């Protein structure tokens, strides 16, 4: 692209805010009551994060992987790509994240470390609860219709925030798992900012906070669970 410095973010916005949010409305209507299943899976993640089961890391990873894969296919590829041709690449990235979650979390069992005792771990749990319970309210509070609500497991933003939260509950999240969620936070923030959405700051803020928390000093956890992967 020549004269790249003359381009602004708005030059890459292919659709109107109305069309973007209407996409969620139609999507929600089409997949109902799939949202109930997604919310149940989200609550299962919260319960599992507090459980002392040796298989909990694998279970959480499997749930997140399923959600990422669904968002890749059900939303990004089949819906979002109808108004944004770059969504095909986003869908591929989400599918890669799902694969990484399976490889690292399910096969490698490296997402089972207990860190809730440490404040960063509790912050991670806060991310998950925010994604499940608070983030869906942001759109309606900003004046958008309830029918356009974005929920964990079916919409990208809360799925990404919940994943960041889970990664914060393990000892030092792995960069290969963080890269795509952080990139999505930038993409989503830029999209919403270009659309002048009042909640555009949420995803970049979540990414920044996750980065800071992930680098925060922590003490060696005393009650490492079996199969909990690498520890410092």
């Amino acid at each position, binding site marked *: 692209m020549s004269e790249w410095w*003359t381009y602004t973010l708005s030059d890459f916005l292919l659709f109107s805010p*109305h*069309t973007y949010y209407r996409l969620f409305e*139609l999507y929600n209507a089409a997949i109902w009551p799939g949202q109930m299943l997604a919310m149940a899976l989200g609550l299962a993640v919260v319960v599992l994060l507090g459980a002392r089961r040796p298989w909990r890391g694998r279970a959480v990873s499997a749930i997140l992987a399923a959600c990422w894969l669904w968002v890749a296919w059900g939303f990004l590829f089949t819906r979002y790509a109808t108004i944004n041709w770059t969504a095909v690449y986003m869908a591929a990235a989400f599918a890669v994240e799902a694969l990484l979650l399976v490889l690292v979390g399910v096969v490698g069992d490296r997402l089972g470390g207990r860190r809730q005792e440490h404040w960063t771990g509790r912050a991670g749990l806060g991310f998950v609860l925010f994604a499940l319970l608070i983030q869906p309210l942001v759109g309606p509070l900003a004046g958008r219709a309830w029918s356009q609500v974005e929920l964990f497991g079916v919409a990208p933003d809360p799925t990404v925030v919940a994943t960041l939260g889970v990664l914060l509950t393990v000892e030092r999240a792995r960069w290969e798992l963080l890269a795509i969620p952080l990139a999505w936070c930038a993409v989503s923030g830029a999209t919403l900012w270009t659309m002048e959405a009042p909640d555009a700051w949420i995803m970049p803020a979540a990414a920044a906070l996750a980065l800071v928390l992930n680098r925060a000093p922590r003490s060696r956890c005393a009650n490492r669970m079996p199969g909990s992967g690498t520890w410092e």
Partner: protein
Amino acid sequence: MQDFSTLSRRTLIGCMTAAGAAAVLRPAIGLSRPGTAIGKRIPSSGEALPAVGLGSWITFNVGDDGEARASCAEVMRNFFEAGGRLIDSSPMYGSSQAVIGYGLARLDRPPGLFSADKVWISSGSRGPDQIERSRRLWDVPRFDLLQVHNLLSWEEHLETLFAMKAAGRLRYVGITTSEGRRHREVEQIMRSRPLDFVQVTYNVLDREVEERILPLARERGIAVIANRPFREGPLIRRVKKHPLPAWAAEIDCANWAQLLLKFIVSHPAVTCAIPATTSVAHVRENMGAAYGRLPDEAIRRRTVAHVEGL
């Protein structure tokens, strides 16, 4: 070169329904003076085009949303009913081409359509496939105008387009740019290739093309399509906060959209402006600019000064 005209009899007969409806619509679209649409001639052929067309950037990219598609079709219906002809799109515009195809089918393929699309792919050899996909999405026998979008791989694509024109599979060939980018290269192509059209950004605030591109277009006999007439919306939103100046009535403008569009199409080199909208009310307002008197140089200067002062 005198490029102002009313539309030819043949064209108007072709758009008989549209013309009839336009007469009915005239009060609704804010026309203060009856008459035929302002036609501006394509220099390379002499064919007249209504001075206001319809863009599709962002506005027609509504995906599979049935309600929004129907709304876009209504915009198109009102556009044609008000005498419009040229619709412009691009493979870059998401689902816009498919939505235009949907609208054309719903309107039983308006005979006056002047289909303008683009080729936008870095590979020259894949240009013909992309053009064919675009044609299928519009569901037209052939495009009237194909343009190389933002000069992407322009040498290879122009070769393809000129070959299509020579074979009778395309009527006009053009290039596009926007927001003042690559004007030096645009000039070079305008001088070296037998272009029929060039598409550039031109509006009351973005007037860089007045210096070289527009005079060169007149000199070389190249039609000009003006994109981003309202700067994608911010310009008209800004001026609408202020009352329309009383002197706008002197050139038959009933609203800001018409004043801004008449400024553009009154430039002797400009053939057509292509505002995009999702609103039936707005397309009616826009099409009002294709009727009545055009500003002379004094009113054009006054328009610039007034808008810059807001």
